[in-house]
């Protein structure tokens, strides 16, 4: 006799599905109450202090009377918007750092248009990132500043710091890939596996800029049922709680606020970093200058997520094997890529760990 697979029958199913419908109506009712542009993100006060082309450098208003003298510049990825580090007051790495006396700057890469299609990595790293570093140095009167690079912005920061070590006091990388081929099997990044079979030249030649929606599609395909179906079914359970609903919407806004990728920069990043893995081979050249990770002689703090399915831990941890400094530290959290910005545990711990580490080196 086969044991029952299910201990509920059609009556229970009917009741459950009716309940699901009721919850859906409640959730949609709550959503309909939220007026246009009511979902605010990145609310910590800040001021634009420098701009060039589509790039803007912001300085956050200090929250203490005498902020620490060496400022921290945050360089985010090109793929999503940088306000993830300041999503909402109680989930804001920026605010937490300001509260601890840091002087914080943030680079907003902007939304590349067709006119920006020919921007290269040299423009982004040497031009814009370099311009921001110089602007922060000048504004603060410091010869060298702290640089925090996140995700792709972390990889950019490694490159810039290796080429301009005299301007970077300390380098902090967060969920940033170094070895794009690191890891075996499930430890290897799925995006890396896929990228090996893509004709990047054909893609950039055909599309010009790579649409943000195209990038999002790739991320959603990594966990298709959980990210496209289960996530919204799960929302029904919390939709009655306005605070949770708004938290969900802020995250949703960030996820789908994806700028297009400047075609030539995308071509270089995918071919040289993802496909050829040139960074750890010392074969990357930016504006004719070679990027040698061994030149990273400043203190390096490498932070990664243990359950990261976009930038696998192995890809981040590889930095340890290539930096020139002996003052290297790792810190990891049992969260995914996004959890690094929004997890309560990370929010509670990371700012302290960062500021302590910086204080010891300032």
């Amino acid at each position: 006799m086969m044991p029952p697979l299910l201990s509920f029958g059609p009556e229970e199913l009917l009741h459950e599905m009716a309940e699901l419908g009721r919850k859906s109506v409640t959730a949609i009712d709550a959503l309909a109450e939220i007026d246009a542009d009511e979902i605010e993100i990145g609310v910590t006060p800040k001021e634009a202090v420098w701009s060039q082309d589509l790039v803007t450098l912001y300085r956050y208003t200090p929250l203490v009377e005498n902020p620490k003298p060496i400022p921290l510049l945050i360089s985010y990825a090109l793929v999503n918007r940088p306000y993830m580090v300041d999503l909402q007051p109680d989930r804001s790495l920026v605010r937490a750092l300001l509260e601890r006396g840091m002087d914080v700057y943030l680079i907003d890469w902007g939304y590349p248009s067709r006119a920006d299609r020919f921007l290269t990595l040299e423009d982004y790293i040497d031009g814009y990132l370099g311009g921001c570093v110089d602007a922060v140095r000048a504004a603060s009167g410091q010869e060298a500043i702290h640089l925090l690079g996140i995700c792709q912005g972390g990889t950019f920061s490694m490159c810039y710091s290796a080429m301009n070590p005299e301007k970077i006091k300390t380098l902090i990388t967060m969920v940033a890939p170094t070895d794009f081929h690191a890891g075996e099997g499930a430890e290897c990044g799925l995006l890396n596996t896929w990228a090996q079979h893509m004709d990047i030249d054909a893609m950039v030649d055909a599309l010009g800029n790579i649409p943000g929606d195209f990038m999002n599609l790739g991320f959603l395909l990594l966990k298709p049922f959980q990210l496209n179906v289960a996530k919204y079914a799960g929302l029904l359970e919390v939709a009655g709680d306005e605070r949770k609903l708004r938290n969900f919407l802020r995250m949703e806004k960030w996820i789908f606020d994806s700028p297009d990728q400047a075609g030539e920069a995308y071509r270089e990043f995918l071919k040289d970093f993802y496909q050829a893995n040139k960074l750890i081979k010392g074969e990357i050249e930016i504006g004719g200058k070679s990027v040698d990770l061994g030149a990273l002689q400043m203190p390096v703090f490498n932070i990664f997520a243990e359950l990261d399915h976009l930038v696998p831990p192995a890809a981040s941890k590889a930095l340890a094997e290539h930096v020139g400094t002996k003052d290297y530290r790792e810190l990891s959290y049992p969260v995914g890529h996004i959890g690094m910005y929004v997890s309560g545990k990370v929010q509670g711990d990371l700012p302290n760990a960062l500021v302590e580490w910086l204080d010891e080196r300032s």
Partner: protein
Amino acid sequence: MSPREQDQNQDWGSQVSSMMEAWAEAQRGAWRAWADLAVPSASAAGGQATPGPAGAPNMGALNETWQRMAEQTTSTWTAGADPVARDVAARIVDSQQTAMRFAGLMLQSWQDLAGMSASGGDWAGAIKRFTEQLQSATWRGPTSFGQSSEDMTDLWRMYVEGLSRMTGPWSETLKRSPGHFGEALAGDHSELLELSRLYWDAWERTGGRLFEGPSLGFSREFEERLLRGFDAWVDWRKSIFEYQVVYGKALADAVEGFVNKLHAKAEAGEPIESMGELFTMYTLETDAVLEQAFRTEEYAAVQGLMLNAAMKYRKHEREIVETFLKMTDIPARSELDEAFQAIHALRREVRELRRELVAARAVPAVPAVKATTVRATKPAAKKPATTAAKKPAAKKPATTAAKKPAAKKPATTTARKPAAKKPAAGKGSTKTGAKPRKPGGAASSKAKGGEA
């Protein structure tokens, strides 16, 4: 608010209420129908219900009706809401529809399972049949590339239908083309002559008005572009088919994995207790199996082929569209790209010149800084841009490293949080002298250097 506005609002509220009620009723109807299918035989199956007799309502149609009403209602209801809220509402409807389809699928399979259960029959056979039933309902992949398109003519028709959306005054000519290319590709090249005439006519109506007469060379070149575009389109369609086959197999494997897990839980005396639990298990199992499939070379290759074929086709499509644009003096993408490339080169040159200017004037390296917005308490002028030149890259790092020996700093930080809070296994094993740090009990940390 005026009485009239109040009335309008009331009307609006009533309308929404009516729509929502209709939606809810449609859903109730659909689920009553499902229940009617299954309930009559429930007792006979020892608790696992079996569907009722023939003559059952068309569940697919009922679900479609519900979906349509839900979409319309949600769209109207959230019309004034924040765009993000609107998107999320639409996804909730999609998600619920998926859950409803899944639940319906399970009900369909109930009879078979229950029958086997009641008769004490072959478990393995029952599970296999159940799996096949689910796989069949989950995935009906194409059996051959040619199934949807009987011949080249059919494919050509589909190609020009797609293309004609983008080709303005030429679209009528393109629509008249079906048959010609198919026959030409099949071997009868005389058809190309007829085709040439069609495009000649189109030329006369558009570009021919501007010039005394088109050259035959243009016509030939254009036909070649169309043919190359068609080839690329066929390759793309083929690659979609090949992708669907591989993806479909992965999905079928996922269903098998799900049923195996279901069976294992049943054998362990832990049957699933609700539709929600079942759906969650299905979701997690499916994504896990799909992820394994996604990691295979076979999947990555076939996905890459599809993507690359799509890009190749898009390039050809653009060439064709550009032909029309240029004929009507509308800037084409390639022309704009030339301009953008020149602008980019100029921007870069300006940046370099600004840098040189700043260096020459020995003022801070803030070429684009807006003086009024930079913090006034620390004027930029205090730190000249020549700093970098005074402290060459090779010197500064050495100084930094010497000032802060690796052995000291990590030791300071790691000593505060004992490694015992989080096992160091898998963390510190690769680093000499590393001591895991677990602030707040959540993180692990280690340092590089000689802190042993």
